[in-house]
């Protein structure tokens, strides 16, 4: 099973906790997915508010590890401060680092991302950077101290599925020993299976499960697709070819005329 910063996981599915129809549906989806990592966030609490505490209690009861994010941060300073505040609340050094660079696509600001990653790893954080499939940026993130990379496959929440398979394939080939998680843009179990067939270690997704008519069933469907894709990669996939190849032996074929 994959290891992230020395922690071995039971599941190759990381599940976001946003946008479920109800807390109960979130809990059921988490249980049925088999995941042991859920992503969480931080937002302003209202005076006298109890919403954050209620949500945190729910997550605690699920018995899973939390991966706090810096979602919505558009600058290095915002992301760094949010990460520190997340560590205060969730008592973990893990941080899913987002530094958003573009309003419409939510594409990472990769320059800010590398800078923030360097600051945070220097302060003892174990950084999961949400990045693009750019190999040079990936190299810089590793130099900055990241030991996991999380390339997107399509814009967050778009459900478009992998837009650049060659880019993801190249990243897998370039960093054979780095745990790689595809984050963002997965819409269907077949998308998840496809990226796992490339040899990725895990998939992080949220909206495709939370927005399904039956989130719990979809969570299980994703878990199965991810395992299938992983198993297929290690089983050795056939390369496509241009011409037909008979699968039934030709030798011994009857001659009727």
């Amino acid at each position: 099973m994959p290891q992230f910063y020395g922690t071995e996981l039971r599941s190759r599915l990381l599940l976001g906790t946003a946008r479920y129809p109800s807390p109960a549906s979130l809990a059921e989806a988490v249980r049925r997915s088999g995941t042991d990592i859920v992503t969480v966030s931080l937002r302003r609490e209202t005076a006298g508010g109890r919403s954050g505490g209620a949500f945190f209690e729910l997550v605690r009861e699920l018995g899973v590890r939390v991966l706090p994010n810096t979602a919505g941060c558009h600058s290095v300073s915002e992301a760094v401060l949010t990460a520190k505040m997340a560590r205060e609340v969730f008592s973990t050094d893990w941080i899913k680092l987002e530094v958003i660079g573009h309003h419409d696509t939510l594409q990472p600001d990769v320059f800010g991302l590398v800078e923030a990653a360097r600051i945070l790893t220097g302060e003892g954080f174990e950084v999961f950077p949400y990045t693009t499939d750019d190999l040079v940026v990936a190299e810089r993130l590793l130099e900055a101290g990241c030991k996991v990379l999380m390339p997107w496959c399509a814009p967050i929440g778009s459900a478009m599925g992998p837009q650049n398979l060659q880019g993801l394939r190249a990243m897998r080939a370039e960093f054979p020993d780095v745990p790689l998680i595809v984050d963002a843009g997965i819409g269907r179990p077949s998308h998840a299976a496809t990226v796992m067939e490339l040899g990725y270690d895990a998939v992080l997704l949220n909206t495709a499960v939370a927005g399904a008519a039956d989130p719990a069933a979809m969570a299980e469907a994703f878990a199965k697709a991810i395992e299938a894709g992983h198993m297929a990669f290690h089983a050795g996939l056939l390369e496509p070819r241009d011409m037909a190849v008979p699968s039934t032996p030709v030798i011994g074929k009857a001659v009727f005329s």
Partner: protein
Amino acid sequence: MKLTINGEEHELPAATLAEALALLEYEDDWLATAVNGELVHRADRANHHLRDRDRIEVLSPMQGG
């Protein structure tokens, strides 16, 4: 003293961050706080003296992806 807490203006008789949180009835177990863009640890809130027009952020766990 005038304070901006989570973007809203407040006039509070609070000398420390802990007092300000108590006056506004924030429950303390899961909150993270920052003053003027700097993290203030839970253990330091009672000793963190506020100044007029400080900007305070009070965050708590929320659903995320």
